């Protein structure tokens, strides 16, 4: 029994180093070669719309390594299913509250998934929720920005709460949720608005857009804190229970 488990561990380590290699090679290629190339191309080739197209491409490049890593890891069916259930909860949460603009539980669910299952899963749950819910709400040029913003919120939630810098209790989660919704999500998605509205962004337009979006971002922040305050504890307990009961601890 012991020997067997030892063997499994060795295999795992091998696989892990392989993943890291592929991922880091791809990341280096994307971050150090593709991104500067795109920026240079944008400066020299596109004259008017360079900010918009370059920023959209860079956001797409930034998301690719997460997906490639997930594919390379050959995730188990159980893991895939748990992730998809969390996404379903996010999508349904967004759909149920379609009447109230900005008052959505999506970020709360993304943060909880990140905190329970790690940053990578948090990123996947966030970005896929953004992507799939837009099949119901309509895809648009805002889709990559939303995906990236949701994903980053989940990623940081994982890095902060799953790695153990902070314990995922209600108060810390609420504080992080408020910060993440207002600054990370609001900040990233409003960049889209700025770039879409003016091809030559400047400080004045940025101030205008951010002040116009202030109320919406505040409502969004309040909703995230509200949902985290209510659902954080029961949802974390449920996810932990499923992890323990079905042995998902090793896989995720």
């Amino acid at each position, binding site marked *: 029994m012991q020997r067997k488990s030892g063997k499994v561990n060795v295999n795992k380590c091998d696989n892990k180093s392989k993943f890291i290699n592929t991922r880091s090679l791809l990341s280096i290629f994307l971050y150090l070669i593709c991104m500067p190339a795109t920026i240079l191309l944008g400066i020299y080739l596109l004259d008017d719309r360079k900010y918009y197209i370059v920023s959209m491409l860079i956001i797409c490049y930034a998301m690719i390594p997460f997906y490639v890593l997930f594919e390379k890891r050959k995730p188990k069916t159980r893991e895939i299913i748990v992730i998809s259930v969390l996404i379903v909860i996010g999508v349904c949460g967004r759909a149920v509250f379609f009447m109230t603009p900005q008052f959505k539980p999506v970020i709360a669910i993304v943060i909880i998934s990140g905190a329970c299952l790690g940053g990578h899963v948090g990123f996947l749950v966030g970005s896929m929720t953004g992507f799939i819910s837009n099949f119901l709400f309509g895809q648009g040029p805002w889709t990559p920005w939303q995906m990236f913003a949701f994903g980053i919120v989940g990623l940081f939630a994982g890095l902060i709460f799953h790695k153990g810098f902070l314990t995922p209790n209600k108060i810390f989660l609420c504080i992080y949720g408020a910060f993440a919704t207002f600054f990370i999500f609001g900040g990233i998605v409003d960049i889209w608005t700025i770039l879409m509205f003016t091809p030559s962004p400047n400080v004045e337009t940025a101030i205008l857009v951010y002040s116009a979006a202030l109320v919406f971002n505040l409502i969004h922040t309040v909703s995230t804190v509200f949902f985290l305050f209510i*659902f954080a504890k029961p949802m974390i307990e449920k996810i932990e229970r499923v992890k323990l009961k079905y042995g998902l601890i090793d896989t995720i």
Partner: protein
Amino acid sequence: MNDTFGTYHPIINFIYFCTVILLGMFIMHPIFLCTAIIGAFTYSVFLNGKKAVRFNLIFLLPMMVLVSIINPLFNHRGMTILFYFRDNPITMESIVYGIFTGIMFAVIILWFSCYNEVMTSDKFIYLFGKIIPALSLIFSMVLRFIPRFKEQLKIVYNAQKCIGRDISSGTFLERMYYGIKIFSIMITWSLENSIETADSMRSRGYGLRGRTSFSIYRFDSRDTVVSVVLIMLIILVISGILLGENSIIFFPLIKTSHITIISVIVFIAYFLICFLPIILNMIEIYILKRNKKSGDLDVSVYNK
């Protein structure tokens, strides 16, 4: 009305929308812009009918106007000063630039509204199922779980109602408490139930080598013709862009490139790209009509 373009192979639909959206994002030349907006508008009305017209009037037109107004207020470049607004010069160039940006915004939104109609989620899964198997599995699982979640929600809701936890009665706090209770039950159920699904999939051999996936799309000769035409048009337009045939400079003075034979060719190519779905639909309608006529004739001959 049925859309013929949507019945072509998904890869053609996907490449088409990527092309028109990306080209639409940065071609600012007035002729190209007009072509794009007329093409996108016609196709969206063709696809959505009255709904599209209403959406365009209520949502798109105000957005276009807003974008057009915001630009000159914050952009003071340009030579032709029309008037001063709070000591800031408002130039003609920046007003024109703002209007063009507004049209461009509308073009992208219109193309996306067509994309939402044509590129359904099953086409997306078909295209990306091979490249990103795990993620597209997540994608299709989510789409399957949503209706199941809804059904189960109804069952749980009714069961809770029976034991006196009715959301529709009681004080606000009570209602909220019951709502949260139902949501909590739903989460437990979906997590537990999903594990069963996962085990069932595993025992049926999901992820083993040599398993085929369901697909109803076939790349036939019709698709080959359209894809060759589309790729040739795309190459023409992109080479035209690289040659600077569509360039327009707004500041300090509005200046477009001269019209030459090459620029006319590039323009025609762009026109054909933007109107490709409409043209395909027209051809289909024409063929149907002709066949119907000859079919009638055949029947009448047969009857005699």
